[in-house]
Every structure is written in C-alpha cells, then in structure tokens.
C-alpha cells in the first residue's frame, strides 16, 4: 500500500489523486495519499483528535473537503454577534446557550459518530447530539468558555459544514405537532384494538346467545374505552369543524365530526337505555384510520419543509466596509447611505449605490434576467443583489433596506402573493356538497319515520349518519397526496405547499423564465472563427492563457475549453475592453475588436461583434473571433415538446435582449415569448392570462421571477435559484433536471385522477349504503365492515401512485 502512491484514490474522499499531488497523512501507522490540501487537513484533524476509528466505521466515502477561506471564517464569527444570536439561540441560566444546527456532508452513521465525538471533546461544549434522520444537531455550550464560531470551525476542520437555523420557527413546531399526533394515534390505536375485541364478542353473542348481564357489561366497557378516544384523539376534528362552521364553510371535518359525534351519542344513548345498536367499534376505527392518514400526510409535509429549510441560510449577507482605509466585515443591515464598500470579484453588491473607483463587469442576470454581464465604470449605478465578476470595485452606498431595488421587488412579491388566485381543493368542494346533501337527507329520513313510526325515528336517523360515515371520503385526498409527494421527492421535486400538486394538474399554461431556467445561466463557447494559419486549438490555448486570472464569464468559458494553457506574462487588463499579455514571446490582446485593433494598428471589422464575443489578435492582425452563448439545459427541447404534447401552452418571459430570447424560443419551438420584461411586466402578462381563465404554472429561478412565481397559481423554482425564488415557489426542482417537470405534471394529473376515483368510490359506497340504512336494514357490524373496506380500497388505490412514481 505504501509503494505506488500515484494511481490511488484519495483515502478520505475517494476521488482520484492527481499525479502532481503529494499530500500524505499517517493513519494508524500507514501513510495514505490524499487528493488535495483540504482532505489532508481534515484527515490530519481527525487523526490528531484520536478519532481514526471513523475510517473503520464509515460505510461511504466522505465528500471532498474544502478549505475555508479567511472570509468564510470571518463570516462564521458573525454568528457570535448578540443581536444575530437572539433569533436562533435560546439562553439558559449560567451562561449556557443552546441552538440547532443543520449539518451538511453527513453520508453515513460514522459521520454522526465522528461529529459527536469531536465536538463533545471541545472544552466548553456541554451537549452535542446529532439526529441522523434529519441531519440536524443540537448543541449546548458555555458562552464563557467557547464561542459558537469556534464550534462551527471545529466542525469545518473535520470536513463538515454546519450552520445554525431558527428552530423556533419550524423545528419546534414540527416536533410538537408530531408528538401530539403520535399521542393521539397511540390512544386511538390501543382503544380501537380493545373495543374491536369486545365488539367481536358481542357480534358472536348475537348469534350464539349471550347472558344479558354480560352483554350489558361489555357494552359499558366499550363505552368506557371509547370516551378517551373521542375526547382526546378525536378532539382535533371537532375543533377544526367548529372553526369551519364559524367561517361559514363546510370542510371535510364537518361530516367527520358529525359522524363521530352522532355515532358516539347514539351508542351512549343505547348503552344507557340498555337496548339498541352500538357503534363504538366503528367510531374508534374511524378515528384511528383518519388520524393515521393525517399522520402520514404530516410526515410528508414535514420532510418537504425540512428539505426546504436547508436552502435557507440564516447568515445575513455581509459586506466589506472601508473606514479610513481599514476594511471591516459587517452585515449588510449595518450599512448606511454614504458608506464606502469594497466589492471583490465574485461577491455580490450589498446595496444600491454608485461606483467610485475601478471598473468591472457586473452580472445582473438574477435581478433582470439579462444573460450577459454589464460594464460598470465610476459614476455608474450598481444595484444590490447583482454580482461583481471581474475586478474589485469601490462603491458608495446610496440607499439601503426599504429603498433598494431589491426591496421593491420583494414588495411586489408580497402583493402578488396576497392577490394569488386560488383553486378550491376538490375534496373540500365535494365535502361541501356532500355534507349539505347528507343533512337534507337525514332530515328527510327523520321526518318520514317520525310520521310513520316515531319510536324508531331517532335510531334510524343516526344509523344513516353513521353508515354514510365519510371515512373514505376524507382519506381520499390525503392518501393520494402523500403517496404522490413521496414519489416526487425521490425524483428531486420538492413540494413545499399542499395545494401545489392539485393545482399543477389543472394548469393550462406553463411559463418559463429563460436565463438560469431553460438555459444554464452561464456562457459557453459557441463558435470559433480563425483568420490566419493558426488553428482553432492554438488560438484557444493563447486565449485561455490570457484570461487565466479573470472571473468574467467569457474568461471562465475559454478556460473551460483549454484547461492546459501556456503561461502568459506582462498581463495588462483594461476592464470592459480586454486583456493584453505576452505568450511564448508574442504580444497578444483579447477583447472587443476596437481594443485589439489598437495593438495591430489594423482595422479589422468583424461582423456580429456583440457583447457575447471576443477577438484575439497579435501585432500582425486579428487571429480569431470567439462567440459565446448561454447554452440550453440538457433535455430542454424534449421537456418543452412533451409539455406541449400534454396539452400545455408554453410561453417564455425573459428580461433578456430580444434576439437572445428569440433564438431560444425558436430552437425550442415556443411560439409566444416576451423579451426585456421587468418583474412588473411578467406579472402583468400572468394576470392577463389569469383573467382570461387560464391556470398558470410558472418556472423560474431569479429574484426578478419571485413576484411572478408568487402570482402564478402554481410555481416551481430551480434548485440552484435564489432564496427569494425558493421562498415564493410552491415546488422546488432540486434535481435541476428539466425533464422532471414532465414527470411532475404527469404525477400531478395521475394524483388528481386517483383523488377523483377515490371520491367517486366513496360516493358510490354511500349511495348504496344510504337507502339500506334509511329503511333500517344495516346492523352495526355491517357498517364497520363496509367502512373499513371502503377506506382500505381508497388507500390501496392511492398507493399505486407511489409505485408508478418510481418508474
């Protein structure tokens, strides 16, 4: 194992070790190769803290470790700020504090072991427990002895990333909700089993004959057992039915409470009188089935919510503020008008303002949808939220917070969300009719029996209410939605809001954003035109050599094409123009044609010289012309075609230039498109469609898409999109695979079909059972069997969605 180090895989992360790498770590006496400095540092940290057993226990290779850069460490230190900690830390007496962390990079149970052992060994950490199912950790520490950032840093040192999240917001609510649901389920389940046992004895007694005293005893015990099930487990149905009634609605809980309450009251009456039918078995079973259905639905909802939470980082955006030449990293909220801020290449602009020094290209695609970076010189406006690409910029802040362009978009988003047109849920609509019909019928039956046989009127009316017990009806929707949501989550399509699947099935129009949604959102080399004997590859190598230290998207695209380039010397960059440098003794320039012309004193005019192309030239003249384009995502064409085949109208709304939008639309076969749309324009287009009766599904990724995402009846955000887009969307395409959209639409339609089948089945069952009950032919045991079979049919039908989702 010690000999041929070169061909091996990294001992830590399993990636191949590059031939040039010499990173070795002694683990238990043997020297193991590592692929990079990050992995080496992590492995060394694990060895140093005596936790090498990790390598023995683990069942998966760890993810490749990345070194934290000093800026990231400075950002971690922000978590120590008292004002920030208030939102996610609970303070206990004697200076100990507690918070919850999201742990990234956990792949197997050994990771949990490693993290727990490593962090617990830190002085000052009082408790650290990792939940393997949710990848969350709870940590309690003594703030006098250790800072939160030290704990986060220690976790980074062994190759994981942790960031706090606000447990009060969701985690606590989820846990309480889950525990309450489990308690209710436990009481209902155990109660149901006991009552059922007694019910079997009573049914057998009907046939074989039973001592009257014993029979009465069993009935009383059944009642005793049902009371906690009704009062404790079934309480939630009654409270939400009451809430519905007060809002003058007939929801699903109204017939449920009516059935449970009615059957229970009738049975209590019969028990007290000592004659008549009892329905305690049906009541408890009904309660248990419904609670179980809702418990599973809640589980699916929580899992989706937790996955969505991982997309949200609590850390406020930070900026480098300059105070008399000293640089200081502060949260964006601390910035005020007039502050001088340094923006490095790759950082985002913290607020609206003006450039005071330097010039660079700025990527505004997330805010405007424009796919090409824009040049910003001293005096030019900078919009908060855009990304600096090329060289450092010094800016002066003009406006912060509420007055920025970004907050204007957020306000538009809030308004769009409030005005969102809803689609009533199918089950609720059916429930309304069902309850109304049921009440009329029950009244009719009661009236008829009152006229003819007043002695039986009460018993028969109640048996009508019990037999029509809407168990299957109310399980129909949650069972189908739970199964479908689970299947889609496995595909990487996260459903964050309950109505999304049903609404998606109704969608008539599907509207796409261009940059970052249909396209990858970054430039790639499209074509090369050469003018001399120098061939394409040679030109590319020289170009890549010149672009080596640049963050500009064009530079990155060139470097990606020619990974092994010669070294360039005497580099000179003119932002917005190009770069000059010496490669292999010759002086070259790359950039806009005018800039290259200056070098060769020639006048090469190149056709189609746009922002998305550069010219390479030396002192003798132009050598090559490179064109770039934002490429379509894999599967975009198939997705659009299949969506159109599914009967959806596909439209394209983009903030980009007309010709870019036009070419994408024609490649994909989209007839309707709109270029240069601001968020307001996009929203207006959607409102126009909606007022014509369309159900609009929107797919986007940027900040500029957020208001439209919120305004559309159902919306999907790309997993790599902005947080604002995630927050305003109903579903998130975590996989970033466009074809999964088609799967989502198909699944949603199948879900709707299954819900309809389930509702139809439940109604048919009720229509058959009702007349039998109305004439007084249904014995309680028939009601119990009928009810459980119909519920079972509904659940099994819903489970079909789960299986099909896999294929």
């Amino acid at each position, binding site marked *: 194992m010690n000999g041929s180090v070169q061909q091996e895989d990294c001992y830590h992360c399993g990636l191949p070790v590059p031939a040039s790498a010499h990173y070795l770590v002694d683990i*238990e006496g*043997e020297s193991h190769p590592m692929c990079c400095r990050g992995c080496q540092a992590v492995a060394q940290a694990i060895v140093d803290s005596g936790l090498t057993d990790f390598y023995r226990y683990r069942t998966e290779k760890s993810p490749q470790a990345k070194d934290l850069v000093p800026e990231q460490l400075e950002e971690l230190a922000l978590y120590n700020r008292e004002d920030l900690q208030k939102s996610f830390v609970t303070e206990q007496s004697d200076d100990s504090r507690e918070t919850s962390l999201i742990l990234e990079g956990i792949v197997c149970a*050994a990771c*949990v072991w490693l993290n727990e052992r490593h962090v617990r060994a830190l002085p000052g950490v009082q408790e650290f427990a990792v939940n393997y199912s*949710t990848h969350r950790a709870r940590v309690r520490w003594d703030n006098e002895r250790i800072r939160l950032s030290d704990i986060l840093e220690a976790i980074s040192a062994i190759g994981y990333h942790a960031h706090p999240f606000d447990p009060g917001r969701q985690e606590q609510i989820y846990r309480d909700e889950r*525990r309450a649901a489990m308690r209710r389920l436990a009481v209902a389940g155990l109660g149901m089993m*006991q009552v059922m046992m007694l019910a079997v004895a009573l049914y057998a007694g009907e046939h074989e004959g039973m001592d009257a005293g014993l029979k009465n005893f069993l009935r009383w015990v059944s009642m005793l057992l049902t009371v906690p099930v009704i009062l404790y487990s079934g309480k939630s149905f009654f409270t939400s039915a009451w809430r519905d009634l007060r809002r003058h609605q007939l929801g699903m809980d109204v017939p449920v409470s009516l059935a449970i309450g009615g059957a229970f009251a009738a049975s209590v009456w019969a028990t007290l009188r000592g004659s008549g039918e009892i329905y305690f078995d049906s009541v408890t079973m009904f309660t248990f089935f419904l609670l179980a259905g809702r418990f599973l639905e809640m589980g699916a909802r929580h899992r989706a919510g937790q996955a969505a939470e991982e997309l949200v980082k609590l850390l406020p955006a930070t900026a480098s503020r300059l105070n008399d030449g000293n640089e200081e990293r502060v949260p964006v909220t601390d910035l005020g008008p007039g502050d001088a801020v340094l923006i490095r290449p790759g950082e985002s602009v913290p607020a609206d303002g003006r450039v005071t020094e330097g010039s660079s290209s700025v990527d505004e695609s997330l805010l405007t949808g424009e796919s090409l970076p824009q040049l910003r010189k001293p005096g030019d406006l900078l919009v908060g939220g855009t990304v600096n690409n090329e060289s450092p910029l010094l800016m002066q802040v003009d406006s912060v917070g509420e007055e920025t362009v970004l907050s204007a978009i957020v306000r538009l988003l809030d308004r769009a969300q409030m005005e969102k047109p809803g689609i009533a849920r199918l089950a609720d609509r059916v429930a309304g009719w069902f309850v109304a019909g049921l009440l009329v019928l029950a009244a009719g039956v009661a009236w008829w029996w009152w006229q003819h046989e007043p002695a039986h009127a009460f018993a028969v009316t109640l048996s009508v209410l019990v037999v029509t017990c809407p168990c299957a009806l109310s399980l129909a929707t949650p069972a189908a939605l739970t199964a479908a949501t689970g299947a889609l989550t496995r595909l990487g399509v996260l459903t964050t809001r309950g109505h999304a699947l049903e609404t998606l099935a109704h969608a008539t129009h599907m509207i796409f954003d261009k940059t970052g949604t249909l396209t990858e959102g970054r430039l790639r080399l499209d074509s090369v035109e050469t003018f001399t004997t120098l061939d394409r590859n040679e030109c590319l190598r020289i170009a890549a050599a010149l672009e080596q230290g640049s963050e500009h998207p064009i530079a990155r695209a060139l470097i990606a094409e020619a990974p092994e380039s010669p070294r360039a010397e005497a580099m000179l960059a003119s932002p917005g123009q190009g770069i000059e440098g010496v490669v292999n003794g010759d002086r070259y320039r790359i950039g806009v044609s005018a800039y290259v012309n200056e070098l060769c004193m020639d006048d090469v005019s190149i056709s189609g010289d746009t922002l998305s192309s550069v010219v390479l030239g030396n002192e003798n003249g132009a050598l090559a012309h490179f064109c770039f384009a934002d490429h379509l995502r894999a599967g975009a064409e198939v997705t659009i075609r299949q969506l159109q085949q599914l009967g959806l109208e596909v439209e394209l709304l983009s903030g980009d230039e007309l010709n870019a939008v036009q070419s994408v639309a024609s490649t994909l076969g989209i007839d309707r498109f709109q270029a240069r749309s601001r968020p307001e324009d996009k929203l207006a287009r959607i409102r126009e469609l909606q007022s014509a009766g369309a159900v609009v599904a929107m797919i986007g990724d940027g900040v500029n898409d957020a208001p439209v995402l919120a305004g559309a009846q159902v919306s999907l955000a790309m997993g790599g999109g902005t947080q604002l887009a995630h927050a305003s969307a109903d579903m998130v395409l975590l996989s970033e695979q466009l074809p999964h959209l088609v799967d989502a639409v198909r699944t949603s339609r199948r879900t709707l079909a299954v819900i309809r089948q389930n509702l139809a089945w439940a109604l048919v069952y009720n229509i058959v059972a009702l007349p039998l009950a109305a004439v007084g032919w249904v014995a309680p045991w028939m009601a119990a069997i009928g009810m459980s079979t119909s519920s079972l049919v509904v659940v099994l039908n819903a489970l079909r969605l789960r299986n099909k989702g896999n294929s």
Partner: protein
Amino acid sequence: MDILYLLIPISLIIMGIAIWVFLWAIRSGQFEDLEGPAHQILMDDDDPRIPRKPKLNEDKE
C-alpha cells in the same frame, strides 16, 4: 363466563399501562431519530482517546 368480569378490568389496566409507556416513549424523544441509534450501538465509545499503536489494528482492512 363469570371470569370475564375479572379479566376485562385487568385488560383495561394493562392497556392503561401500555398507553402510559407509549406516551413516556414519545415524551422522552424516542421517536425523534429512528435510524441513528441502530448504528450508534455498533460503534465503540470506550476506546482510549490517545492515538493507539498500529499493532492493535492489524485486523483493519
């Protein structure tokens, strides 16, 4: 069948105990992580914390 008058109340008491145990398990967080503990039990926590001699780990790999 008179024995039922005794057996059924006993079953009620047992059921009460079962519910109490269940509620206790929920309260003490035993349903929070259904996967982790199954793995945890397999990992030794009583190893000496100082780096061990290589001799002790011949069995590894």
